[in-house]
């Protein structure tokens, strides 16, 4: 079964600090894709970052980076220099090499001024 687990329902971080959100997944596939999505209070889902499983290098997008550990099936998101606009729900998602997406239950992140 394909599952995505986000074990931290809620987190908080001080503005300008760094925070890491955890995600683990279960799969028997060797090639797949991983994503982090952000859902602010507006509820618009926004793609934050993607990682291809065949790439060993961790993806980065400005202040957002991932720590991809394929053997451990772990895909954490690090947010550096946290800003108030980072306050949102964050979803980890896994996509095997066919059409289905699998989402975690989300982590609610609050950035404290």
């Amino acid at each position, binding site marked *: 079964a394909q599952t995505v687990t986000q074990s931290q329902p809620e987190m908080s971080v001080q503005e300008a600090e760094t925070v890491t959100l955890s995600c683990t997944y279960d799969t028997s596939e060797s090639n797949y*894709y991983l994503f982090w999505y952000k859902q602010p209070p507006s*509820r618009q889902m926004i793609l934050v970052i993607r990682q291809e499983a065949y790439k060993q290098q961790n993806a980065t997008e400005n202040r957002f980076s991932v720590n991809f550990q394929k053997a451990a099936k772990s895909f954490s998101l690090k947010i550096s220099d946290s800003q108030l606009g980072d306050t949102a729900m964050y*979803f980890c998602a896994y*996509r095997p090499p*066919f059409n289905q997406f699998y*989402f*975690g*239950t989300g982590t609610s992140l609050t950035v404290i001024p």
Partner: protein
Amino acid sequence: SQTIHQWPATLVQPVGSPLSLECTVEGTSNPNLYWYRQAAGRGLQLLFYSVGIGQISSEVPQNLSASRPQDRQFILSSKKLLLSDSGFYLCAWSPGVAYEQYFGPGTRLTVT
């Protein structure tokens, strides 16, 4: 550039009434299309996905149905709404197998 539209943005319907939510994508052809439901404070539940006109895959048995009458149009329907159908409905599209999904703004449905 590609854009995805959903309407209506908000809907309040009585139990037993029909439902029709529409999603359209612009700027691309033959997208994969998806309908999700998100209950308050919860994750995303995949309801339907489509890889082409008339091709619909259902993930969760329920009183909802989906149709894809045109390449870039995806419709979510119900003949009789239940209270449990309340939630936030998101449409998404993807260029293909190896790509991420892009989401519409969502429809907030309240069944009273």
